[in-house]
């Protein structure tokens, strides 16, 4: 086979016998699927503006973006894992545990009623957070990739264990009096916009490039689509899976750090229950739970839509006891709608 780039014309000898749909259209549809949620996002923006003009104030927009930034990073992490055909429920616990362990090792018990060990200098905060994330991911990888256990049940177990570990070391209390090194990223602003927004946008941008335009990224899709074929094509599937799980856990740990920075504290329940939202956002954004399908950009629109709706419900002053019901309904409706507009089951 020659390596020329100019061979776009098929040889005249045997043109395909039956006329296929023009390639442009197929392509356009494939691209459009990525933008499937954009009309919904615009609609919600309009409704929000009608409900309360505050909705489109820059103040409120930054508020929405900031409150979604940490969860968005977890959604990115989950998207990476989902594309490989696995799932990681334990991300919500890593989200709390990683900054929790850093705080535990660093903070001074004298300042905090006996919480913390004052074992490491505060400069270690960020490395420790990321290391805990990497270790959790590696352990998940050990059980899932090496031992071949089912990812759902392994990470379900890990969700409980990691949360239990955080409750254990903190005695259920909140770590506070965090060092500057832990709060900086989550609380500072760059150019008038909170750093966590910049960071999450940056990570999503990176995710789009990596998953869309690199060997490693495409390997994730190949593994999620058909792991045997990927292996036969020379992709080191075990290694890639392992790396994907580790990267996801590290991202969740980083997101947890941002959250802790914003709170200037690590509550023992940090992230608890968040995984439901994370899955909902990813799936609404078009990521398949069966692997091999979905894009980072789609996931981003999913999480954006979800948080915009929550914000509108808050602005509308929905009665407290019905908020959960409405939240759930919104998720279900979004699913059904994205099924109808997408024309294909969200599987």
């Amino acid at each position, binding site marked *: *086979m*020659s*390596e*020329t*780039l*100019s*061979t*776009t*014309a*098929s*040889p005249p*000898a*045997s043109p*395909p*016998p*039956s006329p*296929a*749909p*023009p*390639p442009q259209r*197929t*392509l356009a549809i*494939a691209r459009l699927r990525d933008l499937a949620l954009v009309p919904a996002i615009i609609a919600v923006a309009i409704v929000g503006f009608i409900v309360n003009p505050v909705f489109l104030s820059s103040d409120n927009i930054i508020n929405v973006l900031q409150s979604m930034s940490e969860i968005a990073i977890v959604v990115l992490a989950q998207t990476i894992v989902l594309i490989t055909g696995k799932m990681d429920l334990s991300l919500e616990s890593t989200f709390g545990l990683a900054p929790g362990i850093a705080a535990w090792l660093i903070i001074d018990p004298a300042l905090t009623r006996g919480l913390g060990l004052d074992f490491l200098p505060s400069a270690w905060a960020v490395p420790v957070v990321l290391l805990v994330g990497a270790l959790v991911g590696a352990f998940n990888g050990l059980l899932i990739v090496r031992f071949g256990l089912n990812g759902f049940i392994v990470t379900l177990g890990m969700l409980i264990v990691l949360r239990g570990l955080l409750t254990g070391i903190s005695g259920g209390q909140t770590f506070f009096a965090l060092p500057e090194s832990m709060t900086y990223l989550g609380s500072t602003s760059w150019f008038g916009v909170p750093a966590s927004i910049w960071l999450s946008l940056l990570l999503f941008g990176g995710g789009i490039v990596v998953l869309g*335009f*690199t*060997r*490693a990224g*495409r390997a994730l*899709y*190949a593994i999620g*689509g*058909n792991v*045997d*074929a*990927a*292996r*036969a*094509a*020379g*992709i*080191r599937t075990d290694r890639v899976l392992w790396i994907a799980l580790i990267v996801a856990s590290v991202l969740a740990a980083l997101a947890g750090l941002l959250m802790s920075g914003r709170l200037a504290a690590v509550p023992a329940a940090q992230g608890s229950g968040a995984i439901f939202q994370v899955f909902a956002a990813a799936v609404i954004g078009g990521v398949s739970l069966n692997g*091999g*399908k979905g894009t980072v950009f789609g996931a981003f629109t999913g999480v954006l839509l979800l948080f915009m709706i929550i914000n509108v419900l808050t602005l509308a002053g929905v009665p407290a006891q019905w908020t959960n019901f409405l939240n759930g309904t919104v998720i279900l409706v979004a699913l059904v709608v994205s099924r109808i507009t997408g024309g294909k089951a969200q599987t």
Partner: protein
Amino acid sequence: MSATPTGPTDGPVVDDRPVVEATNITKRFGSTLALSEAGIVVRRGETHALVGRNGAGKSTLVSILTGLQAADTGTVTFDGEPAPPLGDRDAWRRQVACVYQKSTIIPTLTVAENLFLNRHARGPGRLIRWNALRNDARELLAEWSVDVDVRQPASTLSVEQRQFVEIARALSFGARFIILDEPTAQLDGAGINRLFGRIQDLRAQGVTFLFISHHLQEIYEICDQVTVFRDARHILTAPVAELSRPALVAAMTGEDVSMPEAVHRRLSADVPVLLSVQDLVTASGAELSLEAKAGEVVGIAGGGGSGKVEVAEAIVGLARPASGTVTLDGRVLRPGSVPDALDAGVGLVPQDRHREGLVPLLSIAENVTMTVPHRIGRRGLISPARRDAVARQSIADLAIKASGPHVPVSDLSGGNQQKVVMGRALASDPKLLVLITPTAGVDVRSKQTLLGVVDDVRRDGTAVLVVSDELDDLRICDRVLVMFQGRVVREMAHGWSDNDLVAAMEGVDLHHV
């Protein structure tokens, strides 16, 4: 596959009422037109062949005739009566039994239960009597001389055993009309003979068959009538006896293809040895040693269970061998490592394209370039433009029927999917090309294209291993190693006779009796 001559028997009396008649059937899948105003009439007692190229719509028609799918338009009648509603599966099953192209074995259930799925033997209180069921299953399999414990899960069966379980099940309904969609694609010669024997028995009892196969000699062997589909349309229906083989192929392909016996090119003696396999022993004990020169095409033949696929998988790194070395162009391959093999210049067409060959959700372009990321980008970054260019080249070279490189592979027909797998193997300009059953389920025309490609690459100095039991695949080889029960039992130079090769594959040495 073998063509053991059973010879068409004097067919039973054919009466005029059609068992099934489908008229003006149109069926679309999204943008794909699978059937367009097509139809078929199968008369009582006849054995009716349905042929056509990959993607012609044969299996789609089968699913409509068996009530798995509804046609968009058109009607199906059985014995002149309109077909039952789609929901009434029992009514459909009274009309027609079927061996589908796609496996309908449930791997997690036992063999016995697979045979009597949804028609378990029941006792008092409508509870299932497992003992009776197992006995029935044993009897049924004994008729087919399939020797397996019916209590083991079906996932433990070999491909061929599974196929027999499917066939045994379909034929045990007592249906008067049976559809067989490529039943022979997974069987070896002996198996095919067993199947054909049974078909002869049943048609003597007046059972009607609709038979689909890409092996035209089988059509001539057992069928009375043949219907040809092309590009979703009905082309012709004629008595088999009145249609010559070239005419049949012409009807299928729409062009006058003469199938020239490939002119065999002698290898010059001074070419260097490119591949050397020494004392390779696979995990389950099959052994192989061989040398192949640049430009040489070596066949590895053998029946089911001969170990030919295992040794091939060990050579390319898909399986880790127990011992032995593989050297390609002076480089010793790391055992059990596909990446290393690829790096050394191995191209592979794996046995099962669905399992190992393709990522169905991804586009043709991504599938074709999956093994050659360095060719389509730099430092891990991929250039979509380059990728598409490589893919267009493959599409053109292999005449893949698709609208462009962005079409997901799942939208292609079986033969075209197989071509994509071939394209993937060729994308790296391999020094060694290993083809495992490369033309399984591929239509005549595509087969020709694929084998033609082999001829092209050998000319560029690539060594080729063809691992197959299809005589057509093996005919292009310079020599054929025949394996039986894990050992190479014979080596045959180009120009072997079909009978010799078949006999060798079945473990009979005609020359030493």
